């Protein structure tokens, strides 16, 4: 996923000399080629996330289009006030790129986990929040963010994550991508748990439950009417994300459903609202938080049984 982003951004830098990449000293073995290709437009600002965001805003005020890259907690949380005032309030052409989101910095602990970043970015008026689920979605998000001249957040994982789609994506901002159709229930997923969503579908198929899977490469904006339409088809809706259950995709859907009074049966799968103070592999940490295809498919079976 990260590789697709870097490739996409490199192409944008080739095509448009207004594009700037700023990294807060992140990207070892990621950005070397870009650095040598664009010595003046690739800037390593050092470990200065707050000043880096303001610097990016200053450059945007002077006509540049700036992509600012760092590990997600430092790209979004360390400098949140700079993003809020300089970038979002200024409605500037700055793209915040957070890498290693969710539990992808799995061994380092909460300092490096990014499980509240979507919520923070979604709070900001005018901020577009991209949550790509694979390399194709990351490529789309990079192109889409470039087309917009407004603030964006792109939530990346790391290089070598599984690819789910089989061709470049071309959708309107805010719309979902249907991956599998299903007549019993709909699972909306955003971000790196996209492959898990497919696994959940396959697990449920063995129990004769037909689960539709829909990927959302943005959490903000959301195509509310289309989502409601799709949700009402089965009446059973689930969301899945590697983010705090508060503030992300699930929260966004809850807001939509509550105000629409649809009466759909709805349940959010995400990271429970508590810190994870152990280490382990990414799948281990996810499962520790109730996020595995086994746990979730069992839970969905129970929920559907109650609903019927």
């Amino acid at each position: 996923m990260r590789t697709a982003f870097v490739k996409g951004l490199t192409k944008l830098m080739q095509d448009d000399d207004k594009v700037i990449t700023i990294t807060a000293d992140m990207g070892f073995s990621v950005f070397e080629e870009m650095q040598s290709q664009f010595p003046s437009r690739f800037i390593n600002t050092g470990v200065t996330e707050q000043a880096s965001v303001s610097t990016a805003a200053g450059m945007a005020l002077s006509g540049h289009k700036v992509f600012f890259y760092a590990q997600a907690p430092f790209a979004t949380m360390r400098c949140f006030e700079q993003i809020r005032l300089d970038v979002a309030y200024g409605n500037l052409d700055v793209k915040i790129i957070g890498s290693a989101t969710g539990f992808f910095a799995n061994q380092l602990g909460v300092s490096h986990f990014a499980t509240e970043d979507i919520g923070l970015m979604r709070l900001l008026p005018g901020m577009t929040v991209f949550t790509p689920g694979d390399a194709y979605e990351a490529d789309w998000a990079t192109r889409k963010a470039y087309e917009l001249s407004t603030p964006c957040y792109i939530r990346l994982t790391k290089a070598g994550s599984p690819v789910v789609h089989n061709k470049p994506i071309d959708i309107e901002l805010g719309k979902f991508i249907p991956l599998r159709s299903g007549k019993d229930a709909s699972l909306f997923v955003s971000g790196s748990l996209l492959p898990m969503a497919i696994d959940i579908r396959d697990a449920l198929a063995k129990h004769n439950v037909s689960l539709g899977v829909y990927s959302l490469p943005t959490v903000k904006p959301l195509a509310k009417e289309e989502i409601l339409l799709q949700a009402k088809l089965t009446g059973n809706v689930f969301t899945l994300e590697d983010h705090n259950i508060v503030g992300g995709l699930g929260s966004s859907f809850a807001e939509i459903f509550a105000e629409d009074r649809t009466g759909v049966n709805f349940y959010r799968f995400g990271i429970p609202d508590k810190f994870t103070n152990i280490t382990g592999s990414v799948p281990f940490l996810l499962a520790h938080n109730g996020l595995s295809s086994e746990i979730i498919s069992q839970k969905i079976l129970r929920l559907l049984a109650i609903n019927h």
Partner: protein
Amino acid sequence: MLRKDNVTALERQAKALRRTVLAMITGSNASHIGSSYSMIELLIYLYDKTLRVDPKNPLDPARDRFVLSKGWAVSCLYAVLAEKGFFEKSLLQEYCKDGSKMLGGSTINGIPGIEATTTSMGHGLPLGVGMAISAKIQKIDSRVVVMISDGEINEGSTWEAIMLAAHHRLDNLLVIVDYNKWQSFGRPKDILNLEPLREKWEAFNWEVRECDGHDFLDIDRNINKLPFIIGKPSVLIAHTVKGKGVSVFENRNEWHYKTPKGKDKIIAEKELAK
């Protein structure tokens, strides 16, 4: 070099602007008159002699940029911009009034000549660094002047930007420290000591000069040629007096918060009379 008659004219302008700012602030129960008065001479000099800006073309990509990092003192900047013709002087009467775009903090919201949203401390210098880097990349001969307060030198983001500017050899950047030796709750020396301030900037590879921030000749002597030296960012530590120009305001931190009223207002009007 400034001539003596230039200085007299500038001093007259400073007195007039102090009157304007007093009227703006008392007209809307606003605050921060001390912060405005401590930089009036510096601002007048910059807009008269330094900045290549055109009120008729305020967004010219090749213009110099002035970033008021201490954005809570924007009343003074509005007064200077109106004087220079960036907008009608009548707009000054809207300062801090209900529904007005003339906010009490420097904000990009359509007021011509305002270059940055600041007022949250420690934003202006890194914003200016970005503008200066952009100018270098685009090979535009545009200079950036950032006015910071002494309190802002507490902020980590200010020090991050100080390192960035020197590392990138931003000789198109001038920082002016309005060193009035007051911050929100008292004196920096009692709260978070900034000294030795000159040596700190020097150690971070800036070219440093100091001046009396209320003396036009001294200001001119120090910044009439920019940069101070090629290849380094410049910083002018301007020693100033908070509330300068009115006896009851000078060096009294209450005027960071209060609106001059009653006897204080009468004294101010009398001392600033033509």
